[in-house]
């Protein structure tokens, strides 16, 4: 029996809008094993970031269970939640807006340690900051620098150091490299991977960039309009994508090699509205293979070991 650190069951988040309920996250379930990485992939508006924030209860879910190390996060009181958050951290997408511009690197990294009273004396805190800065590869001279003086890569290292400060077991990385240049992106990805190996961290890796998620994840869940449409181990998903949306998504990645570009599967139109989406397959309006049966929402079914797809026409096309 695999050691499950996080289990999400039927997680749902609706937002009330003037035109009706916005289905941001619509009944999704998955499990994450300790020390592994789950990639959550999708385009803007598919609900992947909301999923991440709901798991940490930065956004209150509408319904569903989030079981982290045996505790249902949804049922915790504010105090218990604050305690539980020491084990669950978030790395933000934009290292420009996720660091308080009026605080120095030292203050930023020590904040989680001081507020949670993890270490008592000032000397201990300073020791720990020094250790964390070395771990994420920030030069000593940046100790009292302000974030606006630093480039994106270094800022993201600060964000990582903050997340690590409380020695969490599980980190949600919300597009941690999409604001960075490619050469810096590789530095950060390598750092995250090293840290995972050293500290045995479990990750949920949220991204729109399939080449990055492929590199990083053990398992990938593809989201579309609040639903998981396909979930499989990374190799399996890339070798044998089954859902029409996954196929289109994979073929749309520009590949930096001559002659490597596969025939693009262009999907028509744009993502439809997440407000009151009805009971048809979420991808129905854009799907090249849509038929009458697709007016009914398909369930996520296991088509081969560990490979789940939500599509009526699997095996037909």
């Amino acid at each position: 029996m695999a050691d499950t650190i996080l289990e999400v069951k039927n997680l749902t988040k609706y937002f009330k809008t003037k035109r009706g309920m916005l289905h941001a996250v619509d009944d999704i379930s998955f499990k994450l094993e300790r020390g592994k990485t789950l990639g959550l992939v999708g385009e803007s508006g598919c609900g992947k970031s909301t999923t991440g924030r709901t798991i940490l209860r930065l956004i209150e879910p509408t319904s569903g269970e989030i079981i982290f190390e045996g505790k249902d996060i949804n049922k915790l009181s504010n105090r218990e939640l604050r305690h539980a958050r020491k084990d669950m951290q978030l790395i933000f997408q934009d290292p420009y807006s996720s660091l308080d511009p009026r605080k120095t690197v030292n203050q930023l990294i020590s904040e989680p340690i001081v507020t949670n009273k993890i270490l008592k004396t000032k000397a201990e805190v300073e020791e720990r900051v020094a250790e964390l800065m070395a771990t994420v590869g920030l030069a000593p001279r940046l100790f009292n620098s302000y974030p606006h003086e630093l480039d994106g890569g270094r800022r993201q290292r600060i964000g990582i150091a903050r997340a690590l400060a409380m020695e969490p077991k599980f980190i949600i990385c919300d597009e941690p490299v999409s604001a960075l240049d490619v050469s810096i992106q590789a530095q950060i990805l390598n750092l995250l991977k090293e840290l995972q190996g050293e500290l045995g961290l479990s990750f949920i890796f949220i991204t729109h960039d399939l080449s990055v998620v492929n590199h990083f994840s053990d398992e990938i869940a593809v989201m579309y309009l609040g639903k998981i449409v396909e979930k499989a181990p990374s190799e399996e998903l890339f070798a044998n994508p089954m859902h029409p949306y996954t196929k289109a998504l994979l073929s749309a990645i520009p590949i930096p090699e001559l002659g490597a570009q596969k025939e693009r599967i262009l999907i028509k139109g744009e993502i439809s509205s997440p407000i009151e989406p009805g009971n048809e397959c979420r991808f129905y309006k854009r799907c090249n293979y849509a038929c009458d049966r697709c007016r009914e929402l398909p369930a996520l079914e296991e088509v081969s070991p560990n490979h789940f797809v939500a599509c009526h026409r699997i095996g037909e096309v």
Partner: protein
Amino acid sequence: MDNNTTKRKYSVEELKKYKKRSMWAEVWRNFKKNRTAMVGLFIVIALVIIAVFSHFYYDYAADIVHQELKDRFQKPSAEHWFGTDSFGRDVFTRIVYGAQYSLSVGIVAVAISCALGTTLGVIAGFYGGVTENIILRVCEVFVGIPSVLLGIAIMAAFGQSIVVLMFAIGLVYVPMYCRTARAAVLPVRGEEYIEAARIAGVGDFGIMFKHILPNSLSPIIVQITMGVASGILTASSLSFLGLGVPLPSPEWGAMLSEGRAYIRDYGYLTIFPGLAIMITVLAFNLMGDGLRDALDPKLKQ
């Protein structure tokens, strides 16, 4: 180099070599470049020095309120630079001595309104919803009453003294700070670093006063310098109406009011106190403008 992470540990001494540089040094550097703002600052400093020194240099009874009826209505001369008033008192001395009233009323009133207003504004902006609604609606009620009228009402209710004047003007301007602070807080509240602080376990109070407030300070600071100017003006208006600092204290507004009766024949009695008010208000405004530019991060890059 900070990549190729060598997994050695830094010593704390190594880190502490790198001194902390303050944000204010940066602001001062920007401020210095603005010549008109520096003129404003210079005048403000000069006024403060004058106010402090005149308090100790002059004797209130002998130099300021002592009447010498034989010397009344003397034109400005080498002996009486700004002339003398209807009681034969030296206008220059009185104006110099009066600086302490205007400045202290302006500054204390602003301190009161800023402390109260900003706290309310931050709370309103942070919590939103019902809390915000209550605070803002109460503010609107106060804004609906003209500030001088509100000042008159408070002065009338609590009696005429310089302390009441300070509180009256302070209260009058609370809604202004409250609304400024709330407006400044709103965009900051939505920033990702606030969410980041929450994830790091910081509570509501810490988020409001350690993260949100420092990041919404610049409009508030500007409001403060401008507020001193309007505080001085309101104090003068109230004194002009006879409701401010009690006579015979040489408050500038009160002097203006006294001189008004003789404006046709002895215009200097109104011109000099008026100039004093104008220069003070202008100096604070110039300084406020400069501060706003110096604090605006958009102009930095």
